[in-house]
């Protein structure tokens, strides 16, 4: 099977190169058969890579430890579902996963694009094929990057999967994040195709809009599940550490969010065409940059793959793509002139511009902080890393400004807002924000940023409620509909707008959850059996945790040491909580990794009680614990679900066609009535 896999990789690369060459240099405009060949090339490459994927999965499931990748990431006693996820657990497999998914997306883009945008498809196939050929080329020519590489001997068992990857979050987190990264290639391909074909009307935007939404949704899901995984698996009790690899996933999400807002201005008013193309190109480059960071080891990260020379491939690809893309954009600059002018800074367009400024500003500051170690090493010879304090200092104010704009944007009219419009729209949300502020002050909150954050959350929430209420009322009045039917029709007829509002509520919940993290309390304790410790919640009640002892037992592929605590809140027992140390072993009982920790969490909507069994000082049941009270953490996960619902609503197929507004371009000079000349 490895031979077949290798062959499939070579076939995919050669097909990719052929497709790209024909798409960019072939005379397909005059030969329809050649155009068909180009689009079919995308399907053929997909088929070849699916064969390669099956070959690798077969090796994983049959425990073919002669394959280096199988021996490095699996063991005979690894549960079957982790044999599936081992596919993307390491550098080589994840490269193949990337290539397979990209080839599927490339083929789907050819199949699903409506016929009115067919003229862009050969170029789209060309771009996706170049990217695909690059990824397959990295596997074939990169040092130690081929997933089908064989060992000179066959070990009796594999090393097994890293314990931290043996978590349900790791089943979903990497694939969804990869899906997000990879699907960005399709909007990028449409942008480049539009530039190459000089079809720079709104057609390419409409053709790729759902792909951009899908990328954004996958990235959002991937980032959220990654936060959940870090929270339940890493044991530090937080969800975001500003690690370079975490930051790398945030960059394209931020620029893609900016694009999804600014593209509305292009659709409605024919403005920001250059900016939108630049954002799509930038987003793609940032996704490649993230891959470079993760795989090069150039910046230290707890999430990086092993350092290898494939990073240089990505750096070269990044530079070449950036130069080629922006040069192409420059040559098409005059064709991307705006069709209308901004009439007022106090307008929906203006709010979206500020929103873009904030999002791109945050993306830049995160990128700057991520790259600062490299810059400081280049300039001063010392690798200075900026930690969470830096990122929080810079990004918290920007994030709050963005939250404010999330509330303001939907309230302002397109073109130009009048004072009456502003007064009518802003009264209820402002009151909502102020009521929240007063309530928080009355509850004793005094910290500045949490107060601002929660007040703005109140402001945005009332904005969204107001938008829904007004829309439903208008429908009830105009169409004499019942409230529920009016709501369904309102959302159904404009899924994009109201799905977007639901997404805004999801974002508000993220902000609320992040605000809660500012009030976390934690302590380290050492307890003998039946000894207790207390920790005070920010809400005022006290938890009493009583150590019950440590039990040791064998499980499927590990030895478990489980420490249990009885939990009482204000003296009333509410249950128990268990945290484990796990020593993973291979099928011969030999330890495979350092002992790992499984945290214990008792969660409700207000707060999480988070317990980590750190170990023992003397080999007895005397146990050390890290105990954390984390307020509002559940709202991250609820916000994630709301955000996904909103995203799905936005991109759900069907519904009315998007109509691009007919724009009236202001004309210089005076209008002179022409006399009709009789023939």
């Amino acid at each position, binding site marked *: 099977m490895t031979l077949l896999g290798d062959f499939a990789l070579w076939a995919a690369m050669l097909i990719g190169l052929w497709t790209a060459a024909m798409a960019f240099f072939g005379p397909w405009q005059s030969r329809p058969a050649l155009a068909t060949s180009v689009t079919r090339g995308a399907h053929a490459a997909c088929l070849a890579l699916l064969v390669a994927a099956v070959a690798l999965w077969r090796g994983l499931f049959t425990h073919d430890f002669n394959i280096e990748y199988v021996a490095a990431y699996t063991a005979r006693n690894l549960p079957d579902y982790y044999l599936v996820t081992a596919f993307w657990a390491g550098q080589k497999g994840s490269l193949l996963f990337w290539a397979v998914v990209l080839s599927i997306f490339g083929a789907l883009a050819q199949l699903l694009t409506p016929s009115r945008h067919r003229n862009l498809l050969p170029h789209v196939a060309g771009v996706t094929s170049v990217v695909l050929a690059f990824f397959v080329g990295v596997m074939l020519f990169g040092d130690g990057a081929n997933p089908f590489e064989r060992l000179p001997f066959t070990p009796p068992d594999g090393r097994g999967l890293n314990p931290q990857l043996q978590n349900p979050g790791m089943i979903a987190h990497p694939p969804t994040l990869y899906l997000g990264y990879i699907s960005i290639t399709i909007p990028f391909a449409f942008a480049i195709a539009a530039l190459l074909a000089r079809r720079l009307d709104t057609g390419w935007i409409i053709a790729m809009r759902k792909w951009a939404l899908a990328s954004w949704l996958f990235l959002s899901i991937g980032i959220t599940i990654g936060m959940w995984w870090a929270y339940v698996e890493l044991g530090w009790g937080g969800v975001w550490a500003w690690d370079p690899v975490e930051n790398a996933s945030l960059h394209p999400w931020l620029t893609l969010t900016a694009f999804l807002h600014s593209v509305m201005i292009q659709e409605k008013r024919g403005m920001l065409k250059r900016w939108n193309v630049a954002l799509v190109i930038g987003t793609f480059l940032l996704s490649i940059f993230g891959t470079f960071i993760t795989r090069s080891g150039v910046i230290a990260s707890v999430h990086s793959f092993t350092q290898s020379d494939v990073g240089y491939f990505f750096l070269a690809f990044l530079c070449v793509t950036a130069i080629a893309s922006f040069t192409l954009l420059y040559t098409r600059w005059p064709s991307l002139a705006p069709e209308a002018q901004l009439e007022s800074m106090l307008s929906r367009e203006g709010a979206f511009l500020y929103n873009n400024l904030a999002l791109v500003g945050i993306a830049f500051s995160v990128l700057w902080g991520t790259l600062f170690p490299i810059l400081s090493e280049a300039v001063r010879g010392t690798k*200075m890393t900026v930690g969470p*304090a830096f990122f929080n200092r810079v990004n918290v104010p920007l994030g709050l400004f963005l939250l404010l704009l999330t509330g303001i944007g939907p309230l302002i009219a397109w073109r130009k807002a009048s004072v009456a419009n502003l007064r009518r729209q802003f009264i209820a949300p402002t009151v909502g924000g102020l009521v929240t502020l007063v309530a928080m002050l009355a509850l004793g909150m005094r910290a500045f940023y949490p107060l601002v954050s929660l007040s703005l959350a109140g402001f945005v929430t009332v904005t969204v409620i107001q938008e829904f209420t007004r829309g439903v009322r208008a429908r009830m009045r105009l169409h004499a509909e019942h409230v529920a039917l009016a709501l369904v029709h309102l959302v159904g007829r404009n899924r994009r707008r109201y799905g977007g509002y639901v997404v805004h509520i999801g974002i508000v919940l993220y902000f609320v959850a992040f605000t809660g993290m500012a009030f976390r309390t934690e302590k380290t304790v*050492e307890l003998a059996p*039946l000894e207790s410790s207390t920790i005070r919640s920010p809400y005022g009640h006290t938890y009493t945790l009583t150590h019950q002892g440590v039990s040791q037992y064998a499980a499927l592929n590990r030895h478990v040491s489980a420490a249990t605590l009885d939990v009482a809140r204000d003296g009333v027992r509410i249950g128990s909580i268990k945290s484990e140390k796990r*020593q993973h072993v291979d099928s011969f009982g030999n330890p495979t990794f*350092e002992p790992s920790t499984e945290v214990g969490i008792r969660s409700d909507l207000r707060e999480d009680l988070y317990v980590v069994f750190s170990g023992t000082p*003397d080999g007895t049941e005397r146990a050390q614990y890290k105990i954390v009270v984390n307020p509002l953490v559940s709202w991250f996960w609820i916000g994630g679900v709301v955000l996904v619902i909103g995203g799905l609503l936005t991109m759900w197929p069907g519904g009315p066609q998007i109509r691009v507004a007919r724009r009236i371009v*202001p004309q210089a000079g005076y209008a002179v009535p022409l006399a009709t000349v009789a023939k």
Partner: protein
Amino acid sequence: MTDRRGFLRGALRALPFAVAVGPLGAQLPAASPDTLQADLLRDPSLLGRLRDPASAYDNDPVVISIERRLRCTCGCTLDIYTCRTTDFSCTFSPALHREVITMVKSGLTPEDIVAALVAREGPAMLMAPPARGFNLAGYLVPGLVMASGALGLAAWLSRRRLAVATAVPGMCPPVPPSPSVPDANQMERLRRALDDVES
């Protein structure tokens, strides 16, 4: 999965403990009402390295604040406090923690302790680099770029508005105020406009 043979093997391994610890446990004084005797674990090595005994300094705000400013030298990118309470296999952060406690006990101020450790390990140990020299760029550049972007946007917008205003004087005549009660014709126009907006 634990099969019968594995179970018996485990029981055999536990037997010496049972023989040795069982009578020992019987000779130990009875546990206090609040705690029980902390019995030996069957296999302490399954928990990794033994931990240092906990002390009041583990939760001391001064110690924690110092440790949060300093990076662990194991290469994990975490600060000493987070590393010592998270990565339980790291041996660097517990050693640094002990060092910090010793310095606090000796009466050194937090600034002295940070300075002493940075002098030994180098400035890369700081979680946030001091705001001087090239490091200033780290703090200032994002703000400067944002401010430049905002200024550039404002200048571009005002130039555009000026261009539109001078190029099309009187292009947009003032809209007369609409009557407070819309007539049927206006309602129909509103209905069409709403349909247009909703689609």
